Structure formats: C-alpha cells, structure tokens
C-alpha cells in the first residue's frame, strides 16, 4: 500500500497509509477501536476502493481491476473475519470446502478429504455436518480458520481473531496461528490483544488518528516515546473514562515483556 487514503461519508478513516507485507514476516496492525484497522485489510483485498494512493497485490496495482481479475490475485490470500463470517445456509463442511467447490477443479471425494484434514487441524472434525448456528463463537473462528487455509493460501489475514473469546479460546487461536506460521504461511493481523500480537508477529504497524505513526519491530514499539503509543500500552488517568476509584489497578497495563 502506498500513500493510501480512505474516507466514508466525509469522515477520513486513513490518510497516506503505507504498508508492505513481506513473505515470511508476520505483521500486526495495532490501534484503538474505530481507527481503521479492519478497513486496511479490506482495502488490501480490494473489497474497498481507496480515495487516493496505490495498492499492489503480487506487484500488480489493483486500481481499476475487474472483480474477476481480483479473484485471481486473491487466490493466494485468505481472511478470517472478526466474527467468522461463515455462510449460515451451509454446513461446516460446505463452508470449509467452499472455495474448492467453487473452483471445481477437485473431485467431491478429494474436497471432502481436504475438508476433514483442515477441520482436524483446528480440532473440529466432528462438526462437519453441523450448521454455523450450532457452534460457539470460538468454534466459529476455528472453522473460519479451517476455511481460510483450505485452499492453501500463502497469506492469511486475521481480523480481531481473539475478540470475544475466553482464555482457552484465545490460546487455541494463538496456537493455530503459530502452527500456520510454522507451515510457511505469512499472517497479517489486526487486534487489540497485545499478548497474541507479540506472540505471533515480528513487525508492527501502529495506526493513530488516521495515520501510521510507527512501523517497526516489537523493540521499536517498546522503546517508542510517542504519546499515543505509550497511552495505548499504559493508559494514563486522562485517557480513561472511569472514576478515580477504579483507575489505579488499571493504569500500567504493561506491554508484554521481552521473552
């Protein structure tokens, strides 16, 4: 992404945003809620059109591309949406094998084998005939991960993958992301979950007030003196909308220590 700006209804979401996703370098985009992190993922996938700036997929500018051309470029990318975005009218198995069924290159038996393999990867092989409405939030996210990896993409985007999950669910998702990285997948995540971010990413982009204010490593984040970043990790009394009574235990939510 080069100098990308995007606005909605006159409200500027991001301005002059730069981002390069290198193969093998897992990245997390950080920032407070509503700052435009998910928008960046959607812009990268060509789901939204920027007001200005250029976006390249595999080195090709996507501006003006038709949906059919974009589909070819998206073949190497998958996304796990914040709430899974599983197709309600399909079973878990049909969801996971969706792209393979759509492509129509493999036999039904082969697709079923891949679906089972991916479901067992996320520990949900027994849910193949269930519908999304019969799954818990954590299970939906794991099925969404299985769907994302079914067509063996090189890049996987995660939109708040641990939001709304219990600690075990968070651990499971974090562990799955690490397993995917070990298999050679490159991940791009947007999240508020600092522990997961530091566990799975080598590079970080920090978005604040429509702009990218830091692009660097975990150490760069730790050593950064920027007020917005310090506030994000250790909120001060001024940035918390709560009474003084509750402030003390919360202030100083420390940045995860270097392992």
């Amino acid at each position: 992404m080069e100098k990308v700006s995007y606005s909605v209804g006159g409200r500027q979401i991001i301005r002059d945003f730069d981002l390069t996703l290198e193969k093998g370098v897992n990245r997390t985009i950080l920032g407070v809620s509503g700052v435009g992190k998910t928008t960046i993922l959607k812009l990268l996938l060509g789901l939204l059109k920027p007001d200005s700036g250029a976006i390249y997929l595999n080195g090709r500018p996507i501006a003006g591309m038709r949906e059919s051309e974009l589909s070819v470029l998206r073949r190497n990318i998958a996304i796990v949406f914040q709430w899974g975005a599983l197709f309600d009218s399909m079973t878990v198995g049909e969801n996971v094998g969706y792209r393979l069924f759509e492509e129509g290159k493999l036999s039904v038996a082969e697709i079923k084998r891949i679906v089972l393999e991916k479901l067992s990867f996320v520990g949900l092989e027994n849910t193949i005939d269930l519908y999304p409405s019969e799954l818990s939030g954590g299970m939906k996210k794991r099925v969404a991960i299985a769907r994302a990896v079914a067509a063996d993409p090189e890049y996987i985007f995660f939109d708040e993958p641990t939001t709304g999950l219990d600690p075990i669910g968070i651990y499971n998702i974090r562990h799955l992301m690490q397993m995917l990285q070990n298999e050679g997948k490159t991940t791009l995540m947007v999240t508020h979950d600092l522990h997961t971010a530091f566990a799975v990413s080598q590079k970080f982009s920090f978005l604040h007030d429509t702009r990218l204010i830091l692009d660097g490593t975990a150490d760069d984040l730790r050593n950064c003196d920027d007020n917005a970043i310090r506030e994000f990790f250790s909120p001060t009394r001024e940035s918390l909308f709560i009474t003084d009574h509750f402030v003390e235990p919360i202030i100083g939510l420390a940045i995860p220590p270097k392992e």
Partner: protein
Amino acid sequence: MKDTFPERRLKIFFLNVQQFFALAARSVVRIFSPPFYYREFAVQFEKIGVDSIFISCLTGLFTGMVMALQALIQLKPFAATSYVGGMVCVTMVKELGPVLASLMVSGRVGSAITAELGTMVVTEQVDAMRVEGTDVIKRLVAPRLKATVIAMPLLVIFTDTVALLGGYIIAAGYDINPLMYYKSLPQFMVFQDLIEGVVKPAVFGFIIAMIGCYVGLSTHGGAEGVGTSAKRAVVLSSVLILVTDFFMTKIFIVFR
C-alpha cells in the same frame, strides 16, 4: 462548492438508479453464463414459488369471490348474470391476478430476499464470498432473479384459476350452472389477454427480485439497517409494480 440539500438528494437518487440498472444488466447477463448454480436456483424456486402458492391461492380465492359478488349485483338488474364468469376472468387474468399476486409475493419474498442478503452483507458473508473468489452477482442475484421470473407467471396462473373457482362458488348461489359459467369465461377475452396475463407477472417478478437484491446488497448499519432495507424493498417494489402495470397496460392496449 458544496451541494445544496436537493442537489445532494437528486445526485443520490440518480446514482441509485444507475447502480440499480447496472446490477440488473449484469444479473441478466450472468443468468446465461456458467456456472449456473442449479442447487441455489432450486432452493430459491422452492422458497419463492412453491412456498408462495398458498398465499397466492388465498388471494385469488377471495378476490375471485368478491369480484363475482360485485359483478352479480351490477349484472342482475340487466338479467346478465350469465356473464359473471367472463367479467371475473378478464379482470383477474389481465389485472388483478398479476398485480395482487405480485404485491403478495413482494411482501413475502421481496422482503425475505432483502433481509437475507442484507444480513449477509452486515455479517461480512458477502465479503467472505468475494474473497473466496465467488462472483456475488452470479451466486446470489442471478438464481433469485431466474427463480422469481419463472415462478411469478406460474403463481399467477394458480391465482387466476383459484379466482375463477372462487367466482363460481359465488355464482352458483345465483343459479348459474357450471357450464354457463365456463362458457362465459372467454367472452370478454382475446388471446393477447392471456399473453398479457403471463408477461406482466414475469416483469413484476423481475422488479421484485432486482429491488430485493439491490436493496439487500446496499444494506449497511447492522440489524437496524436490515430492517430498514426490508421495509424499503417492499415499498419500492410495490410502488414500481403499480406504476409498471399502468404503463404495460398502455403498451398492450396500443398493440391490441
């Protein structure tokens, strides 16, 4: 220079009209190009067509009965009650059958299409489909359009038939025998009226499906947005059905 309020509204209106026709054109093209999503078509045909038979028949039955009742009251002083079948038939086949059945289906199916697609938009399922390489128009719009355009004329044939039966139920109370009723049916009609009776519902089906899909895919704003869209789709398609009916009738009269 900033747009004034009416300018902005007009721009939004024409933008919507342009986008609607662009979606309609793309959808029509995609109906004829593979993959055809037969299963999706079958599911939609069942939801839109088969599941609407009961409500259409009910509409037809009571409309036919009330038509016959009103006609008999008017015809009785002229000793022309034997024409009641013809009057019910021509009114139902040309106007009331297509319009009433379409309005019922618009309320039942148009809102369902909008709510379903709107929910898919706000829960990012449509985005997920696009990322998975699916042509959303081909997968979501074309099967619904095809199913509605095929189902509507069939539903109207059911509606008209039941309306004629309903008309006879009332006519029988006025000592009109079945043969007399049956023989009066074609008296006020020409063959073109039958064509009008199936072309109109096909066009209305197109309106119902396209408005439902367009409004559904333009949904934003979560659950409230879905509700607003469903309401908008029903109002828009109902008004468009009535307006289109007038112009189609004018066209059919010109070619009569």
